[in-house]
């Protein structure tokens, strides 16, 4: 199945671990799209870089909008206020790595 890769920037008030981000993402997708939606979107965190607070998340090609919505609706994780910005979408991880993050 073809996948799409999203470059995201995570804004957080306190230190955020990759596990917390993972939980926040899964919880948001489950809350807004349910179990069937989760299986259709199939979100996966490819990489989470704490130093630049960026991450690469992948999903099914047909579900990019759903994943972008779910990421936009994340507001907190384990008591930490977070906001997730989708900066770019690409068909390859290599394509995303070329993008500069401000």
């Amino acid at each position, binding site marked *: 199945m073809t996948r799409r890769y999203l470059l995201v*920037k995570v*804004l957080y*008030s306190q230190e955020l671990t990759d596990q917390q981000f993972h939980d926040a993402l899964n919880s948001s997708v489950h809350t*807004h799209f349910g179990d069937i939606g989760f299986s259709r979107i199939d979100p996966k965190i490819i990489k989470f870089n704490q130093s630049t607070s960026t991450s690469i998340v992948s999903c099914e090609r047909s579900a*990019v*909008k*759903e994943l*972008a*919505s779910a*990421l*936009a*609706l994340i*507001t907190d994780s384990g008591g930490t*206020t*977070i*906001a997730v*910005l*989708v*900066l770019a*979408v690409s068909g390859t991880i290599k394509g995303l790595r070329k993008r500069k*993050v*401000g």
Partner: protein
Amino acid sequence: MAQILRTAGYSAVGLTIPTGLLPERINSIRQIFQDQGIDTALRIDLGSPSRTELLRSLRRFRNAYDVVAVKCANARVATVASRDRRVDVVFFDPLIRNVRFSHPLARLLHGALEINLIASILSSTDSGILSRLRKTIAVAQEHNVKVVLSSGARTAEMVRTPLQLSAIASTLGLEGAVSAVAVSLLPASIITENAKKRKPEYVEEGVRIIVSSRR
């Protein structure tokens, strides 16, 4: 916040300015955004509780701001704001449940309907907000109403990228192409049109003074 907006990919934002703020203060706020390469448009949100007060505010503030938005606090204000040509956008507070965007208002609306997606979703505690937004979008689509998508961000944590706003609207039923226009081209066109109207040579719709350089 200006830095985050830049990272999120915005090139222009609408700044909601309270009435009575000194011009020096307004300029200093605009400068902060300009330093990040973001253009600003001054905007006023009129939350008048009555028809008379709304009309008085429109007379007073229309020419001072790039964008005039009206928060529809009740059905009477919503009707007047929808009809009035001086109003650029109308928006509804999700916490006020007795007034919402309906078919009669959609037929009357002259300007555009603004949906503050993130502010609406985050401010509401009940799960029905997504369903109300979906209904609003459905009514707007049925009557071909112009829709402007905005985050309604007051803090940095409420900022989302244009792509995300468009994605949420698409998920809630707005057509893909329309949602892309709603987040970029339409707000820009409102500002451009208003800039034309505020020029001294503008007389009225379709009429402007042309000064010939030759004698």
